[in-house]
């Protein structure tokens, strides 16, 4: 075999391997991600548009969407506010125990949502640590909306922190110090210098948080008490609809949730891009 042939053969082999890997990746993503999305869209459209209107007319469905929206909005606001504070502390303050806090932030990623739900029951349920306090105030936490919000927040804690901390570390303290020597108070320095510098990372974290809150079911299922039409989020409604063999309606609600998630996904991609620019500038 001449040297030329060997080179040709090598080129061929490289192209074959490359084609093989590419098709594997495409098949993997296609079967697991695209097929279900197209499938659900197809099923809904087959049932006709009347089905969509009928489903949205149901009082339970409207309540479910309202509850999911409420939980998501509260979760986003709380995780953004405390997330930025925590990210600030992690990035700026080298206090003893920093690495422990850093590790704890990831806990919700590692723990199954069902376990999170159980922990909430243990804390707020009958005989739980916090139950006597809230019972005395006449506030129902467990098997009510507050516990659903609490577990969703718990699960969404890491996103904002994980996105904002590295950006804060990367941009450093120079600009904040410059702002202060120019007479800016700490608050002015935060809102006029720091916040604009982390805004895309924050948006990215918020979008991830929102997506997670929309789709949450495991923990919410445990703490909601599953009362029909009450304490029923969109995901819980889908679960009940399937159990009651109302598949078409379940698909409509699922498709709506999926559409919102895809919208979030698009914005996530957009924010991610901006965030990378934020770091590299």
């Amino acid at each position, binding site marked *: 075999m001449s040297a030329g042939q060997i080179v040709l053969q090598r080129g061929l082999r490289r192209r074959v391997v490359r084609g093989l890997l590419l098709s594997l990746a495409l098949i993997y993503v296609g079967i697991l991600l695209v097929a279900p999305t197209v499938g659900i869209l197809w099923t809904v459209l087959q049932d006709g548009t009347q089905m969509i209107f009928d489903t949205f007319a149901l009082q339970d469905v409207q309540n479910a969407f309202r509850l999911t929206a409420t939980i998501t909005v509260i979760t986003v606001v709380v995780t953004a506010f405390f997330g930025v504070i925590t990210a600030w502390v992690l990035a700026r303050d080298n206090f003893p125990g920093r690495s422990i806090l850093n590790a704890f932030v990831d806990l919700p990623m590692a723990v199954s949502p069902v376990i999170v739900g159980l922990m909430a029951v243990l804390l707020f349920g009958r005989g739980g640590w916090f139950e006597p306090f809230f019972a005395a105030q006449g506030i129902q936490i467990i098997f009510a909306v507050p516990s659903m919000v609490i577990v969703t927040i718990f699960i969404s804690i890491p996103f904002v922190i994980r996105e904002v901390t590295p950006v804060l570390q990367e*941009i450093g303290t*120079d*600009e904040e*110090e*410059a*702002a*202060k*020597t*120019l*007479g*800016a*108070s700490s608050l*002015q320095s935060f809102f*006029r*210098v720091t916040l*604009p*510098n982390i805004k895309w990372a924050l948006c990215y974290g918020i979008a991830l948080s929102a997506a997670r809150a929309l789709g949450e079911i495991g923990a919410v299922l445990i703490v909601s008490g599953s009362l029909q039409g009450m304490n029923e989020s969109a995901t819980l409604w889908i679960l009940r609809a399937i159990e009651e063999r109302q598949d078409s309606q379940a698909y409509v609600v699922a498709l709506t949730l999926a559409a919102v998630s895809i919208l979030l996904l698009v914005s996530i991609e957009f924010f991610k891009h901006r965030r990378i620019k934020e770091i590299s*500038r």
Partner: protein
Amino acid sequence: MTTTTLSHDIKSAVGVEQSAMIAVKDLNKFFGKFHAAKDVTFEAVEGKITALLGPSGSGKSTVLRMIAGLERADSGHIYLDGQEQTRTSVQDRRVGMVFQHYALFRHMNVRQNIAFGLSVRKQSKREQQKRVDELLELVQLSPYGGRYPEQLSGGQRQRVALARALAPRPKVLLLDEPFGALDARVRQDLRKWLDELHRELGVTSILVTHDQEEALELAHQVVVMHEGDVQQVGTPDTVYNQPATPFVAGFVGSANVINGLVIGGHVQFGEQMLDGAGHLSDGSAATAYVRPHDVKLSLSPNGGSNSQGTVRRIADLGWASKVSLELNDGQKLVAHSPNDQIRGIGDGSTVYVDLRDAKVFAPQGNQPSDELAQT
């Protein structure tokens, strides 16, 4: 006066005028166990540039940050414009500060950057615009008001940073290695430009730098620091020609380090005696610092206390040469000579070496590294 004065003598000798524009007295700062600033005392010359000169880790930036209020002094006093400001906040001190890495607000354009200090102090929009125009003119960046920091070169960024620091009319200007992040050429240009600008403005300034050339060229007064200690305070001429400590002798300008013994007010090494050891007792060890241009070479003995050495290497720099020598007792030296004075001398030549203007000190722990001393 070529004799030495120990650093603590100098400190007690420098009384601090509390009415001075900037004065610090007995300033101390610890980072954990690390003593970053040790009883630092000096005062800045009104309307002039005072340089804080030292290698990295010498505590010069820490002192500057304490004056700015970005770092809290553990003990000591800071006076700005005649008032004690040791415990006041950064915002209240009204200093202008320029950082090594510019620290421009990256999401604001040039005009917004310069206006920042005016807008947080709630000046009217009209006043802000007027002042920004003035400053853009001053730093020669008028066409660039709408640009963002990332669209500017390093030199332009630092000029914006200077304009931003000057905008609120600070009483003092603090410059933390302002040319440190720029390449050599731009650094030269900007240095000259800053010198001219400062002559025009006359604002009392402190310049932190590790570059002795920069300090000697720009400053009216130089404060040499080493390991948190003020080694010497003086004019560029004084610190260069009358170094107070071995560290200053080696760090400000380059110097050959020669070790010997004190005999009758002279330093003896090999067969050579050097003047200037009258302050040391007989028989003690001594270290002499000799500038490379104070090492005179010749092929024949020409009086004085000459000794012999062998030329190891000659680097021709065009009009002058850098000659590396080994003395007969094994000590190594570098000489700088105009080329017309070393005609006939080549690698391996045996030459007579005349050392002039030696600064003699008792050996101390804090000598600069050989690398610094030989450059």
